[in-house]
């Protein structure tokens, strides 16, 4: 086994701190009881930051499997980003600075996840090329253990995510652009979410941390709709009909594209670049559609948005 090399005492202390707060067994236990990777990372990080948010965590279930099993970003990234947003809100309150910090934390989450697992999308991570032979697939799932791989990955990634979020939120503050800063925070507010929930969603901007992946506003809409369902006493299911309905409306609006970089035609270079895009009305139609779809008072979804 390769020995872990620390750059300095400060890094060694940080690693020790992470290990004392997040244990592998605890993460796997959380995975077994919570049932999805998204809720697991969200829950483990919330507890490491000493601020559990039970309903918010439960509402992240549909983000597993790369958004309702569509195969995009791993649910661990979605869950970690929401937990990072919660911590950004606790440290910086509400407003552009908090949202910008949440985006920068999300960037580190995506980068560290990719560094650890080579990929960020659920379909690629599970190691299954669907065109693989039956023998290859059987070997992967029965001998190697498809789900066990996800348990291991969560156990390995949770302390890394905690460190990355802590580091991002502890750095010297960068100049934040004027509002709006984050498409997903903007959408959250349109859906009637609280300031805390808007900052929590902020890091999902630009396909999570401006990485260009599947639309963060879509993920935010599904998450907020999940919280509304819980408030109304309904269940939040991994593959809920309301989440799938939201996806149907979304793809109709984006000509059946999911990823931010494809929809927008490029990746965003910085938080300021993304903020400029929003100021110029970029993605307004998507935000209108998602906001209308997620609003209980506007059940007609797309039609309601198109009438605006």
């Amino acid at each position, binding site marked *: 086994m390769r020995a872990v090399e620390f750059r300095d005492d400060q890094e060694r202390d940080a690693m020790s701190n992470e290990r004392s707060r997040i244990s592998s067994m605890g993460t796997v236990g959380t*995975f*077994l009881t919570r*049932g*999805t*990777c998204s809720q697991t990372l969200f829950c483990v990080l919330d507890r490491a930051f000493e601020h559990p948010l039970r309903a918010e965590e439960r509402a992240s*279930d549909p983000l*597993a*499997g*790369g958004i*309702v*099993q*569509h*195969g*995009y970003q791993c*649910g661990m990234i979605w869950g970690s980003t929401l937990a990072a947003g919660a911590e950004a809100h606790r440290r910086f309150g509400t407003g552009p600075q908090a949202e910008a910090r949440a985006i920068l934390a999300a960037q580190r989450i995506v980068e560290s996840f990719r560094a650890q697992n080579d990929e960020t*999308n*659920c*379909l690629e991570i599970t190691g*299954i090329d*669907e*065109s693989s032979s*039956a023998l290859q*697939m*059987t070997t992967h*799932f029965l001998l190697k253990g*498809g*789900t066990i791989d*996800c348990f291991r990955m969560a156990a390995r990634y949770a302390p890394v995510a905690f460190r990355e979020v802590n580091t991002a939120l502890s750095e010297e503050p960068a100049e934040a652009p004027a509002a709006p800063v984050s498409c997903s925070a903007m959408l959250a507010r349109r859906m009637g979410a609280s300031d805390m929930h808007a900052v929590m969603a902020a890091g999902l901007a630009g396909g999570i941390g401006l990485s260009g992946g599947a639309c963060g506003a879509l993920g935010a809409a599904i998450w907020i709709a999940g919280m509304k369902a819980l408030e109304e006493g309904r269940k939040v*299911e*991994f*593959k809920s*009909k309301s989440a*799938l309905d939201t*996806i*149907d409306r979304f*793809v109709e609006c984006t*000509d*059946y*594209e*999911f990823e931010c970089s494809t929809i927008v035609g490029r990746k965003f270079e910085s938080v300021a670049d993304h903020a400029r895009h929003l100021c110029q009305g970029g993605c307004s139609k998507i935000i209108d559609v998602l906001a209308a779809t997620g609003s209980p008072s506007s059940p007609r979804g797309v039609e309601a948005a198109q009438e605006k």
Partner: protein
Amino acid sequence: MPTVEYAGRSLQVNEQGFIVRPEEWDEDVARFLARTAEGIEELTSDHWAIIRFIREHYLAHRRAPMVRAVCRTTGLHLKRIYQLFPSGPAKGACKVAGLPKPDGCV
């Protein structure tokens, strides 16, 4: 639990129309579900490519394939899949392929 009657058989379905016992599925059931649940009068070769992939994946792994996997394996763009199954791959195609409603990823 609701049931639907088909060719003298009684199929149990959940509240969203997913059959409860996937082992009751066969190609005739697929045609029946396509017509009654999705309004598809005739299943084309593209429909069958999607249905068979979803079905085979389910039998191998006991869960539906990811939507990106359906696109990749069949070579069909998501837009085309929505044209074929108007309620989408996760709802329409999985229903016609006789999958139960999934509960979670572990």
